[in-house]
């Protein structure tokens, strides 16, 4: 079994890729997203209900990652913007050409509101020893993505479990 490279060991627990969303949270996407799943929850459609229950309009909690997906095109951008960069860093550093996501969990904090500009960062939590699976031999890793609003309040923490591997030869 090969040792974990020192570079990867250093990443564990380190806050990396701190970034701010490309645009403010806005209601147009909230309405379109609710329409896409025919969600009639009055919190998202009725300002009086939103004022009474949540102190004003909010976005559906499960939209949290929407606010960080890059524009399809942006002036001056020369290469594709990748979400979850730590995942791709691990593939490269560990020499594992294939990878799949095997699990996702989100814990929701303060509500996200129109006008918020969210920040995010990624933290590698763990990397397993090498394991043999039906896909191939590789390592599992756990990455946390934390999201906060402009007041520094945690609005969510997403945990991804990935498996990077080499196909059997």
């Amino acid at each position, binding site marked *: 079994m090969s040792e974990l490279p020192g570079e990867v060991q250093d990443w564990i627990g380190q806050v990396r890729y701190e970034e701010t969303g490309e645009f403010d949270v806005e209601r147009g996407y909230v309405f379109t997203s609710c329409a896409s799943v025919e969600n009639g929850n009055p919190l998202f459609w009725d300002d009086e209900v939103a004022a009474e229950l949540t102190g004003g309009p909010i976005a559906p909690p499960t939209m949290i990652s929407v606010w960080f997906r890059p524009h399809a095109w942006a002036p001056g951008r020369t290469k594709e913007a990748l979400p979850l960069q730590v995942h791709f860093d691990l593939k490269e550093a560990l020499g594992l050409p294939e990878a799949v996501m095997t699990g*996702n969990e989100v814990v929701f904090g303060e509500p996200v509101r129109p006008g918020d500009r969210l920040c995010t960062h990624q933290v590698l939590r763990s990397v397993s020893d090498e394991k043999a699976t039906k896909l191939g031999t590789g390592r599992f890793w756990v990455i946390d993505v934390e999201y906060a609003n402009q007041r520094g309040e945690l609005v969510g923490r997403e945990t991804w479990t990935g498996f990077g591997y080499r196909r059997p030869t």
Partner: protein
Amino acid sequence: MTTASTTSLLHGTVHEGDELPELSVDVTATTIVLGALASRDWRPMHHDKDFAIERNGTKDIFMNAPNQALWFERFVTDWTGPKGRLGRLRFRIRDSVFPGDTMTFAGTVEKVELDERDCGWAELALVLRVGDRVASECNARVAVPVREDDNPWDRHGGDWQP
């Protein structure tokens, strides 16, 4: 198709083993494309049938993961009403959802509890099926009011323990 009303479920009326009302949805190409673009997912397998067939090896375009999460949220809050506040959601995609499929969402209450701050919780096991196929499995933890004048959305800081 029913949607959430302005009334909310109370914690004392929820019991382990309760089943959520099923939700069935006929999926069209528009369902898939609208869901992908609403979640800012521009990847072609969610709007370009030729790409999905040739590059992904699937029979058609298929629903993206963020939109499935939004469907699960809608399914849960249709049941709780607007005071229901999601604390945690975990899901695993097992198979794809295509245009022409009928999705069926089902769910069971696995656990009911009050936390140390008297917040009422229901833990749910949810499943999205297409015919006999399980497309996704999901676990959700949702806060519901313990009294008429209680509101989980009022909880902040240490009073919110999802």
